[in-house]
């Protein structure tokens, strides 16, 4: 690892940890509903001590919005990524280990899913199912599992031919146990790198949905803050810039953290 890569990795992990800490602490740092209209509309950042980052066009505290928005963005991102990667691992392992018809069927399904653009699929799904946080998670998960599935399948196909797997088979272990307990752990390292990218992408899709007004209307989120601040772009750019920076940082930090983890695991192997 170069010094630069190490620095970037450390920064990514640091920013992500800080983000998670702030998100967890949001109810204490900014008590109450972040959607409450608590101050004078369009207060500039630092203009009033009560609202260090100012207020938006309806008098909602921008700092409270960012903190509570972090909860939504990170929770939705993590939940969607976990669901997507879980589904991807399941499909990839089964396909890669069993091969044959199961492989064919699952891979055709994966290819079919991959031909649909991720964001459009999520958009369509949320439009039909309704804009709630759960539906957003489901929509993102359903549209982002294929890359994991393909990667896991390839790794599983490589690992299953190794000698220790044959040994397990000869020892008479059940096929499912071999697949998930023997083969999968050996195939997981590259998936870790994908975790970071998937979380980052999930955060981005959640923000984009919220930006288009398809996020949960009862929750403050970064994408929604950018969307509602856009009308005031010329008057008070901080309303768009601050949540925009938050989104960019979160996506970058998630991706760098994934990279760092993958390098660690890769180095050990």
């Amino acid at each position: 690892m170069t010094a630069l890569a190490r620095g970037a990795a450390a920064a990514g992990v640091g920013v992500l940890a800080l983000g998670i800490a702030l998100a967890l602490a949001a109810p204490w740092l900014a008590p109450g509903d972040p959607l409450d209209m608590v101050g004078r509309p369009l207060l500039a950042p630092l203009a009033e001590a009560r609202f260090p980052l100012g207020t938006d066009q309806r008098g909602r505290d921008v700092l409270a919005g960012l903190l509570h928005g972090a909860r939504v963005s990170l929770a939705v991102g993590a939940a969607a990524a976990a669901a997507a990667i879980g589904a991807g691992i399941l499909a990839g392992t089964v396909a890669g280990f069993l091969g044959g018809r199961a492989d064919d069927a699952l891979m055709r399904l994966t290819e079919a899913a991959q031909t649909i653009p991720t964001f459009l699929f999520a958009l369509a799904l949320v439009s039909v199912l309704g804009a709630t946080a759960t539906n957003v998670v489901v929509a993102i998960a359903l549209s982002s599992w294929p890359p994991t599935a393909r990667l896991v399948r390839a790794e599983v196909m490589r690992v299953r031919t190794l000698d220790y797997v044959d040994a397990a088979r000869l020892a008479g272990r059940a096929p499912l146990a071999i697949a998930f307990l023997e083969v999968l752990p050996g195939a997981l390292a590259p998936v870790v790198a994908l975790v970071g990218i998937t979380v980052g992408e999930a955060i981005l899709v959640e923000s984009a949905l919220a930006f288009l007004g398809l996020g949960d209307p009862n929750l403050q989120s970064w994408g929604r803050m950018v969307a509602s601040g856009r009308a005031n772009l010329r008057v008070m750019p901080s309303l768009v810039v601050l949540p925009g920076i938050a989104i960019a940082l979160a996506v970058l930090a998630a991706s760098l953290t994934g990279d760092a983890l993958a390098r660690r695991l890769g180095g050990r192997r």
Partner: protein
Amino acid sequence: MQGNADRGGRRAGGMRAAALVAATLAAGFASAEAVVAQEARTGGRLTVAADTEPRNLNPAIVASNGVFFVASKVVEPLAEMDYASGLRGVLATGWEGSADGHTITFHLREGVTWSDGTPFTSADVAFSAMQVWKPLQNLGRTIFADLEAVETPDARTAVFRFARPTPLQLIENALPVVSAVLPRHLYEGTDIAKNPLNTAPVGTGPFLFAEHRPGEFYRLARNPAYRDAGKPYLDEIVYRVLPDAASKAAALETGDIQLTAFSAVPLTDLARLDAIDGISVIPGGYEGITYHITLEINHRRAELANPLVRQALAHAIDRNFIVDVIFLGYATASTGPVPSTARDFYTADVPTYPFDPERAERLLDEAGYPRGADGTRFALRLRPAPWFQMTRATGDYVRQALQKVGIAVELVTADSGAHTAAVYTDHDFDLAIGSPVWRNDPAISTTILFQGGLPAGVPFSNQYGYDDPAMNALIAAAAAELDRDKRIALYREFQRKAETDLPIIHLVDFTFITVARDEVKGVANNPRWATSSWADTWIAR
């Protein structure tokens, strides 16, 4: 600090615009012709922003503002709204109703020709009324439902015969919107709804429809044969299709367009634009096009069927917050279903529900819904109409306001189609934010919000589960009343009844705003200016 400076600027803009309207009004009273003749310059092109790109440009079929914005310069109505006289004849010069309410006689203007040279006659009016307005037009289907026949004793007279007594006042108030006259000789014998002229209208107006390039622009050209010598002043009107609000503001600043109508630029940009030399914000000219923001209430919920709870809702919502923060001052708090701009019908003598959260809480306690252990009395689902930014923003505000008095509110969002079906067909809502239109007479689109017994699926009507015999009787009596003053008195009684029962809550009234470069003259000089003919609009050098 910045906020204060902005407000100051805005107020100044409002006053400047008010002065402009006043000046225009004064000119109208003195002698519009003389004043305009001194100043008006002939020639030039006016470029304006188009928000929507309607496919059907036939205002006799689609009586909507988006269509009128372009088509009202080509196709003319029988009469138009006017600041001085209330109503000014356009293709008609006068009209009178019979005492029994069964006939209305229109006297038509002499010397009017269609742009292809064919003379305009009473046959065109009869054809338009019977073949287009009554069977095909969105509003005409209701207003002319009782129209039996239109007789044409001579080329300049059209006699409308109604099966049931029809108040002349209602027809007068509807004329500017429902009476666009089509050329019979080009429509008769064709499939009217599919006639190619619906996308390239032909009329008697000051401009000719020249060109439409989808996604780019509409172009209208001066009608050299227009009956009013010297008018129109403009050579051309170009409507540039600019769907994005921010790009409209930018185009105004660079001078690519000279005018935006219908509040096309974001409200938050108005103060900034108004401060720019050469650009003015003009709030007048839309008095005849007023919208309300309403809180629609589903009386099928036991809590909401209780009048005390509905009064509590009204007291819990700060209308001034909606006016100041969501509309940035460009709206007025409602007192009821008729806006204060409706000179004849409006009455302020109604029960009012000033913002008072403590009183709201007392009323909710009294109604038998005390705060529970978690501070919540009961939970409601609120559907804000998705079509205006302001209806969505009002939904956000109402949620917070009701939570303050212990009513938990869950916002439910949907696209326009799903929202309309959920509220007006399936009644799948507790509260909704609506935006009904005031159409200058309560009988056109206002009493339908209060009338009981309507079938499910009629959009923008009483689908609230409110059905009060006294209210229904009042609406029926007013609809059949021919006497102008008695009719007005009945509609004032209707407003009192509406605000006493409070089946829905009218929150604010709003119209639109024009932003124009200062070289554009003759702007906002009638109450439906954006949808009028623009024959007297001109461009200074």
